[in-house]
């Protein structure tokens, strides 16, 4: 089975976080990047060949995934392949038009890898999953396609793509964000396709002028129309789409909650990430820490409560950081007060600046621009 990770999206709802880097390369959970999750899942599921479909701002992402030894994906005959849109002999150069088109443009790669099954993943979800088990179910049920689904609360079901199934979990209908959902089985954007069939459908889809070239909008409906065997694969466990600042913040906060359903401490299912040479975390003599997730390179001299500190971030003396996510290398100056913030990489919050509020509905994204604008206003006062 060859895995293909869709990692080309910009993730516009993450605003400045993805201004310069693609969403899958965004940092998460103290020391990781989002794409470490699907890549580690692949490695732990004994998948050796992974294609990563990149497009938007991919320089950093490309160089990161090229270091395939990080995830142990460097064994003979396998590897992580970076697949940007590229100029081709007949069709010339074209950007990826949709999720399905991205795979269509790489059929030659899948042919060359002699793929029997193709696993389609998304580069922006946080979860741990054994794809080997899903493949087993796919084969056992003689499916043409298997879609991983998550049972979501009925009231939230209209936010997702919903699979309606019969009693044997065969999918009979697919509805994208239905106003009146008939089931609560939400698609996780994880598909296993039998390659031979998929190849034929993608080739046909390529010719259709009115197609969006999208798995959810075009390929899955065609499969259903033609009466192919589509199976729902029920996943139980933690799964989160981190497409917005609020959901990214929430997923980080989940790591310090009592439930901590993601559990990154399981030695049998490690999430691997690029190492750095930062020193261990240094907790100063006057530091106060009340519920936090802190990693190497951090220096804490102030107060940290219900927060996640990423590699190399500093919290200076008398600073108070609450319910916040402080990303890589960000420095929180002396006496600064932060509530419900996500502070971007390398932002320096000047001393005594107050950012965010305990009662705000949304999470404040703290950028360099925001900090310097606030500092300017303060200087004028």
């Amino acid at each position, binding site marked *: 089975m060859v895995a293909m990770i869709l990692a080309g999206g910009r993730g516009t709802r993450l605003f400045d976080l993805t201004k310069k880097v693609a969403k899958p390369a965004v940092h998460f959970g103290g020391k990781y990047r989002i794409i470490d999750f699907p890549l580690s899942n692949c490695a732990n599921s004994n998948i050796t060949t992974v294609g990563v479909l990149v497009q938007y701002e991919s320089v950093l992402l490309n160089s990161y995934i090229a270091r395939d030894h990080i995830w142990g994906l460097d064994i003979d005959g396998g590897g992580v392949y970076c697949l940007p849109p590229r100029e081709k002999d007949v069709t010339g150069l074209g950007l990826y038009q949709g999720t399905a088109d991205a795979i269509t443009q790489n059929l030659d790669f899948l042919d060359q890898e002699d793929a029997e099954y193709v696993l389609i993943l998304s580069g922006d979800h946080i979860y741990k999953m054994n794809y080997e088990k899903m493949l087993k179910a796919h084969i056992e049920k003689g499916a043409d396609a298997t879609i991983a689904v998550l049972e979501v609360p009925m009231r939230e079901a209209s936010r997702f793509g919903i699979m309606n199934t019969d009693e044997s979990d065969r999918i009979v209908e697919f509805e994208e964000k239905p106003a009146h959902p008939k089931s609560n089985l939400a698609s996780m954007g994880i598909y296993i396709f039998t390659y031979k069939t998929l190849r034929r459908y993608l080739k046909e889809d390529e010719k259709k002028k009115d197609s969006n070239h999208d798995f959810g909008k075009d390929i899955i409906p065609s499969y259903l129309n033609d009466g192919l065997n589509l199976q729902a694969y029920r996943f139980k466990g933690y799964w989160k789409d981190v497409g917005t600042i609020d959901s990214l913040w929430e997923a980080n906060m989940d790591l310090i909650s009592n439930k901590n359903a993601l559990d990154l401490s399981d030695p049998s299912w490690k999430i691997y990430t690029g190492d750095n040479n930062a020193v261990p975390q240094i907790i100063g003599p006057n530091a106060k820490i009340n519920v936090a*997730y802190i990693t190497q390179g951090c220096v804490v001299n102030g107060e940290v409560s219900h927060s996640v500190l990423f590699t190399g971030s500093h919290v200076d003396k008398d600073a108070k950081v609450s319910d916040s996510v402080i990303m890589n290398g960000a420095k929180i100056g002396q006496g600064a007060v932060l509530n419900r913030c996500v502070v971007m990489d390398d932002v320096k919050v000047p001393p005594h600046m107050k950012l965010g509020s305990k009662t705000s509905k949304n999470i404040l994204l703290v950028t360099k621009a925001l900090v310097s604008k606030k500092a300017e206003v303060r200087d004028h006062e």
Partner: protein
Amino acid sequence: MSNKMLGIVNLEPANVHVEGIDDYRPISATSFLGRYRVLDFMISNMTNSHIDEIEIYIKNRPRSTIEHILGTNYNVNSKKGKFSILYGEIQGNNELYNTDIANFKANIEYIEQSSANYVVVAPSHFVYIQDFNEMLAYHEKMGGDITVMYQSVNNAKEAFAQCDLLELGADKRIVAMSKNNGKYKNRDVSLECYIMSRNLFIELIQKATMTSSLFWLSDVVADSLSDLKVVGFPHRGYISCINSLKAFYDANLELMDRLNDLVSDNWPIYTKTNDTQPTLYKEGAKVSGSLIGNGCEIEGTVINSVIGRNVVIKSGVVVENSVIMPSTLVNKGVHIQNAVIDKYAIISHIKELKGTPDEPIYVKRRDRI
């Protein structure tokens, strides 16, 4: 002549005895500062000095060292660079004859094969930061045959027992070397780090072998002071000679505050990655003045201590002025003061472990108490 150096990480001399810890592995392979092994400092000094051919000598119990070196990327070109772990098989079981010279002699062909013009030999039980290019430039400027790194210390009596004391002439030439019997406080102590030409190094190995089978490299250097020009190179900055349990304990606690001054983006210390998650500070955790590795779970109180990877500290626990090595579990209500707890220990039943700063208590590897 090119300035290529062969780096030799030497084994620890016979005067190094870190009670308890070295029953399991040489001190050089011991977990250090919550994240490293002691020898990471010396190897990183070498690779940061752009030395890409490194031989690491070990006396015996090689498992820890081999596993660690294999798993670490010390930032050396993976094609042109070369790491070798070497030991002498014949004298391996006889402590008396297991000298560094015997080990060099047993592996002489690997020293002869090297294309480097110089060797830098440094033992791994010393912890300091040094750019060896600086020392080599000094060696060339002074025009000596051998350059020996030393530091003027005021704690020779307590911290450098049985180390070599140097007597330096005005021109920095070493006129005498003697073993430190702990009489004096202020002395110039050899850090047992030498730069010389590779050819001279090979000659010294031959000379030592012919003189006495008990000779160490430092003995043959001392024996050559009148024939050769042996010059002292002053080292400045932090040093620790980890030759006892107390020294190991002190180095951990001292370096905690100084780590960020010694280590920088330009001078990183490389070590093996373990893919451990960040550390979780739970409700009720009180941590101050401490150095904490990744992967810990802390519910109790930690004061002025070094905590290794994957350590679990339950509620009601107080850890003070202590060094806790990786994967240790400290169960509810245990109080630990001035202690060194070795890896994988589980402490549940003994509710109070108290040493003193001068005599820290040691809990064995995998001990369940």
